[in-house]
């Protein structure tokens, strides 16, 4: 898992070199972003093969069209956005699709609570741990997605808004409301 911070300057240089046809830079971009794109994709559809295939196709496509691509001040954002659009379209056409209605406003975001009690601060009571677990599992799909994009991919609110096809204000409140609920759990003590 990579870090969240990437300087846009570095991104611009990499993107430029990639567009000029550097295979080495392509590999670098690929290795840097494949894991997080894959992990994001898995939360949208849980089908590893489908995610992998679409991700490989995406990278093939950008490699083939590298000369026609626009500027990218954030490669991660550019890739996440393209990948989501592609994956949702694939899901929609997927014959084995389990739920039928899938478009930019209808899809699930699978994000399970995975932390163990022992990883948490030992001073926290078991009760708070359970409340937190419960609280996280009760976040809505949209809240989970916004929070995930923020914390795991370091996107800013404008970028998240664009990826989720909602406005910035809604994005802020998705994150804010989600966190507020969790914060309250720790207030009581």
């Amino acid at each position, binding site marked *: *898992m*990579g*870090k*969240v*911070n990437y300087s846009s300057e570095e991104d611009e240089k990499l993107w430029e070199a990639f567009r000029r046809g550097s295979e080495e830079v392509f*590999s670098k971009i*690929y*290795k840097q972003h*494949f*894991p997080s794109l*894959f*992990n994001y994709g*898995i*939360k949208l559809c849980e*089908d*590893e*093969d*489908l995610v*992998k*295939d679409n991700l*490989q*196709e995406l*990278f*093939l496509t950008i*490699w083939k069209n590298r000369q026609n691509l626009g500027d990218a001040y954030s490669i991660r954002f550019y890739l996440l956005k393209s990948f989501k659009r592609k994956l949702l379209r694939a899901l929609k056409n997927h014959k*084995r699709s*389990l*739920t*039928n*209605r899938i478009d930019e406003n*209808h899809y*699930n975001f*699978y*994000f*399970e*609570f*995975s*932390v163990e009690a022992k*990883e*948490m*601060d030992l001073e*926290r009571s078991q009760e*708070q741990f359970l409340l*937190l*677990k*419960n*609280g*996280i599992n*009760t976040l809505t799909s949209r809240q989970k997605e916004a*929070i*995930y994009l923020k*914390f*795991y991919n*370091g996107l800013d609110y404008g970028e998240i808004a664009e990826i989720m096809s909602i406005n910035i204000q809604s994005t802020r409140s998705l994150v*804010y409301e989600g*966190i507020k*609920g*969790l*914060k309250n759990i*720790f207030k009581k003590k």
Partner: protein
Amino acid sequence: MNLQKYKTEDFLEDKSFIDYVLFNSTEEGDLWDNFQANYPEKIKEFETAKSILLGLKSKEREFSENDLEELLVDLKGRQSASKSIQISSTNQNGWFGIQKIAASIVFILLAGVSYWYFSLPVEQIQETTIAIIEKINPKGQNSTIKLKDGSVVRLNAESILRIPEQFKSDLREVELIGEAFFEVAKDSSRPFIIKTGNIKTKVLGTSFNIKSYPEDENVKIAVVTGKVMVGNLDSLETGEEVLLIPNQMATYHKSTRLFEKGSFNPDDVIAWKKGVIYFHEAGFEEIKEVLERWYGVEFRVKKQVDFGQGFTGRFEKESLETVLKGLSYAADFDFSIEKDIVLIK
């Protein structure tokens, strides 16, 4: 950045802090490692933000340098192989290896199930000649029903199960109003079908829970073991079906006529079997209905109760009063109980 003024939210906006907690980043690690000593007055906010982030820790798949090299090789292979990219079935070593094989086996099984599902005749002609037995549970009572094929149905309160006196030779069909937990006996020559309103659930041997009270906004089908196919009769032609495997739950929204697939905690969804009331993001209306059903009471609401984002919690073999006390804590209301009437004020 003034750490003295940091609130919990500010920590959660700080990328360096996020990196530190989620990715064990060492940049500025010292700052955060020594935070407690340097800013003792901010410990509470710091710890809360940290707990929230840790709580949000996701099971991320890790890719080693080697994995990524193999993926790149795979990518280059695709580039030269053909223009149209097929879903790969050749590359079975490396990458996801065994998981890939497992996934395809599952798919074949699923494909079989879905073919069989749609090749079934929708209507059975002799139906009218078979007597139907009705099992009815009033409020506050649940029961266990053994069917002739060996299947067992645990029927919840205020629910009705309609069973033919004799199952057909090629089909076991029952009708449910309300909620029940099914343990279906395996019989591959006779699929088991549960009709709930305009939803049909088809199974081989399996156990799962269906919640479909007429007044509920949605129908919930939760699978514990085996596989289940759920379809909407209205939209059979559009192929609106959902396949469920263990620990998955389909929620059918009556208003939009759409299925949503998600996961569930088996202990919670089928809690009622063990005398546990479980609420998940429940609004007051839902809570009211559940309690009326469970305790055989009626609510009179004088003051509207708002649970905000919904109430989540469980009550195990508790009295109605204890449950209401717990709830009044969460949503700030007063209540009194007189015989069968609960007054909310």
